[in-house]
């Protein structure tokens, strides 16, 4: 009986339980960060714990939403969902200096264009190397390498098979998680320590989830600059990959 009531109480307000759990994760993560003399930032550890929980959730339920697929923790889906994430991203723009943004504008835009091209080329060449030589498949997997949203959009527009679309989503998910994990370690070497570099980084990586987590784990002050360019990336990719990108691949390999 006691356990039943406990279960009901925990499951009654899923979002509130998620707040409590994330608070606990942050506390543990920052305590661990202190143990390393803050050489590993607390927020980086917290994000890593989040990813580990997501893996556990995936193994236990075979679902797609990490820990949120466990009914008790379904509040994570709302707390970490697109609505609150984008709302919190917008709020980080408060206090940003317009002058800094202007300086970051040109390199950020260049990064955006260069990176969509590079991701599409790398993705479609990797597809080609693995035997997906049809231009539609190449463009779809190239799109997935841009972000895991561009892949399915491209595939749906060009009529790719569901197997190829799933592969393109997987490439995008690998990218997004790699950005989350690698950013705090590579930030210093890559010169990611000022607003302009953050805007370029946002434009180069493009995945909003990867960039928002990567910068949070590196230096929260840089978040708005990176997030700003990253939020243009998926839309831009959805625009050019199924059109110009596909036509270029068709011309070269068709």
């Amino acid at each position, binding site marked *: 009986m006691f356990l039943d009531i406990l279960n009901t109480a925990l499951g009654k307000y899923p979002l509130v339980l998620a707040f409590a759990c*994330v608070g606990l*994760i942050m506390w543990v993560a920052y305590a661990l960060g202190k143990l390393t003399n803050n050489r590993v930032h607390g*927020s980086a550890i*917290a*994000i890593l*714990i989040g990813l580990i929980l997501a893996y556990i*959730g995936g193994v236990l339920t075979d679902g797609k939403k990490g*820990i*949120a697929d466990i009914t008790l923790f379904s509040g994570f*889906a709302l*707390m*970490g969902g697109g609505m*609150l994430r984008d*709302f*919190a*991203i*917008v*709020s*980080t*723009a*408060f206090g*940003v200096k*317009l002058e800094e*943004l202007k300086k970051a504008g040109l*390199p950020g835009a*260049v*990064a955006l264009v260069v*990176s969509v091209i*590079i991701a599409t080329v*790398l*993705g479609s060449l*990797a*597809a080609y190397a*693995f035997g997906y030589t049809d231009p539609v498949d190449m463009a779809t*997997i190239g799109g997935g*390498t841009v972000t895991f949203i561009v892949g399915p*959009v491209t595939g749906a527009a060009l009529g790719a098979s569901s197997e190829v679309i799933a592969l393109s989503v*997987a490439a995008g*998910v*690998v*990218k997004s*998680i*790699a950005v989350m994990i*690698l950013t705090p370690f590579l930030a210093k070497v*890559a*010169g*990611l320590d000022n607003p*302009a*570099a953050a805007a370029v980084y946002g434009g180069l990586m493009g995945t*909003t*989830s990867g960039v928002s987590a990567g910068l949070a784990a590196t230096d929260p002050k840089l*978040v708005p600059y990176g*997030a*700003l360019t990253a*939020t243009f990336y*998926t*839309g*831009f990719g*959805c*625009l050019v990959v199924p059109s110009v990108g596909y036509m270029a691949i068709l011309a070269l390999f068709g």
Partner: protein
Amino acid sequence: MLIYGVALMSGCMIVGTFLGYLVGNLVGISANIGGVGIAMLLLVIVSRYLMDRDQLSKLAQDGIKFWSAMYIPIVVAMAAKQNVLAAFDAGALAFIAGLGSVLAGFLLIRPIAALSPKSAPENNAAE
């Protein structure tokens, strides 16, 4: 009031989303192109304008700052709902394509960031 700041942010986000979809529609796709980015620009400009005129109270600012402070916890929750299993189970093709583009990105940060107008402190002082 605290809600004024939150409402200001929400207004920026709604207008930004509208403009994002409008741009998408104009170029022929039903996607939101940069809606969140446009909302961020709006918030930077509008909040600057209001603060210069003392029209954004301390409490209203706190309403925005609360969400800003919730950013990292929200990102942690977001990390916890990623499809990590799919990433680990993905075949070599997904790994090569995904990781390759990330590593290429890190290599390009420095050269492209160099396009930014130089921000040496003495230049700023002179302006």
